[in-house]
């Protein structure tokens, strides 16, 4: 009965308008070309690919049973080293990042030049991966936990500093103005005005980064950064698969424990 009203209307329906369709087709085409290009030029030996599942299973079979006897004398010290590396690295990063975040926060530092320098430090430290930093520091200080700790610290500066600066910029100006009005010194304004407001975010960022750093520091040893990674590297080079299995289990466990610990800290303290 109402069908006649719109009988003259074109009865076509397309999900997207023409420009949208062209854009999407172009995008899909681009993806397909990129994948084909990648697959054609990259060196994948088909035999290896077919073999991969079998080989991977073999690997785990070789790791079993795990050699627990190796834990006390080699893996436990490495585990402690990893935990200390992550913790010290985080502490150092927090100390440096606090200063840099003050440089970056525009409500504290009003100089654009200082802001920009701070921002550059944050971006530069963050975009180079901890593992690459570790390569640098191993070249400087020789292999060991010092290099790993510095790599963790430097790489974390960007992350911690960025979020800390945001937290400082989000601080409410009311209490700060009240303090300034009393004639308090700049340091007093920082400690009594900003710190109480920033503290929850500060603790959250630090614990969150510590969690990430535990994961990271467990692998830095592969390039000479000490800790569990070093133990893994040794076991791999010696083809002691039962020891490789042990280190992997320990890494897995410590990552899980760190995650649970940070979740607990976040819910109980913050």
């Amino acid at each position, binding site marked *: 009965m109402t069908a006649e009203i719109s009988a003259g209307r074109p009865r076509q329906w397309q999900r997207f308008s023409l420009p949208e369709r062209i854009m999407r087709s172009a995008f899909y085409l681009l993806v397909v070309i990129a994948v084909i290009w990648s697959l054609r030029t990259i060196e994948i030996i088909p035999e290896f690919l077919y073999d991969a599942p079998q080989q991977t299973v073999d690997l785990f079979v070789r790791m079993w049973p795990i050699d627990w006897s190796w834990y006390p004398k080699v893996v436990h010290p490495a585990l402690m080293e990893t935990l200390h590396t992550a913790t010290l690295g985080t502490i150092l990063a927090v100390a440096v990042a606090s200063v840099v975040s003050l440089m970056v926060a525009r409500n504290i530092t009003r100089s654009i030049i200082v802001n920009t320098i701070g921002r550059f430090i944050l971006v530069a430290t963050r975009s180079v991966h901890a593992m690459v930093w570790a390569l640098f520091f191993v070249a*400087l200080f020789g292999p060991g936990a010092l290099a790993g700790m510095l790599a963790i610290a430097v790489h974390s500066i960007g992350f911690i500093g960025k979020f800390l600066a945001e937290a400082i910029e989000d601080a*409410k100006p009311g209490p700060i103005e009240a303090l300034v009005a009393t004639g308090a010194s700049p340091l007093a304004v920082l400690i009594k005005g900003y710190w109480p407001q920033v503290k929850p975010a500060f603790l959250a960022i630090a614990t969150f980064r510590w969690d990430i750093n535990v994961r990271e520091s467990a692998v830095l040893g592969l390039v000479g950064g000490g800790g569990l990674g070093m133990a893994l590297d040794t076991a791999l080079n010696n083809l002691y698969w039962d020891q490789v299995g042990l280190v992997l289990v320990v890494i897995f466990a410590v990552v899980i424990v760190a995650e649970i610990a940070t979740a607990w800290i976040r819910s109980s303290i913050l």
Partner: protein
Amino acid sequence: MSAPHDDTNLGIAALAAPQRVAFPPNWPARIGLLVLALYVAYASTILDITWARFIIGLDHGAKFLSRMFPPDFSADKLSLLYVGMTESLQIAIIATVVGVLLSLPLGLAAARNLAPPPLAWSARALIALFRSLHPVIVAILFVKSVGFGALAGILALIVASLGFLSKLVAESVEEMSMKPLEAVRAAGAPFLSVVTMGVLPQVIPRFIGFAAYQLDSNLRNSALVGIVGGGGIGATLLTAFQRFDYDFVLTIVLAIIAIVMVGEIVSGWMRRMFQ
């Protein structure tokens, strides 16, 4: 300590405080700082971190920096750089595409409101395993099982992508509204049609953003997996370090930073196009 601070109270307290004790000592905080200082000292000895080593390192650092500058842009190095970079890019592209394609089914299987409990729990366990393994460790395992080269890197990054994307898919599926699904089911739609018309429209817009982020992240990590034998620019970087070609190292690092920034721009552009 952790109670939220009331602005007005704080202001008044600050104004009133100077009349009495300027800043009452905060004993818990002081003890905390002392414990922290003791820990740092203790941990430093454990890690054999000494001032002397640090000074020696800084001395090395000066030489190191002088050997890094200026970065090496000679033609043969640039062609090495080009080869390594393209391989990294290819690794990242393949890993992202495969990861995206596989993460949808895995994420759906892990969503407790769609999948039967046994399937959901096994999928969740798998995702948890993928997430807790660092890409570098996964890369090492693949290098050992499929040999050195790009394939190991690709497989490692696929695992990393699956861990990240599947979890987000599962979370968005669990957060979505079930009402449209009820309607589509009532119309007699088969399960896959329920997914395409009921689930995906609710989940895809967020998923696109995550996938773009994952491309970024894979680009970054493809430099990483190379260090342990997964191919790409990481391998080039490690070789340069081992040969003490520090000026070439700087070139590579600059190139990595540049490509990561380009990746961020491209993924931002992708996100805008699909939303």
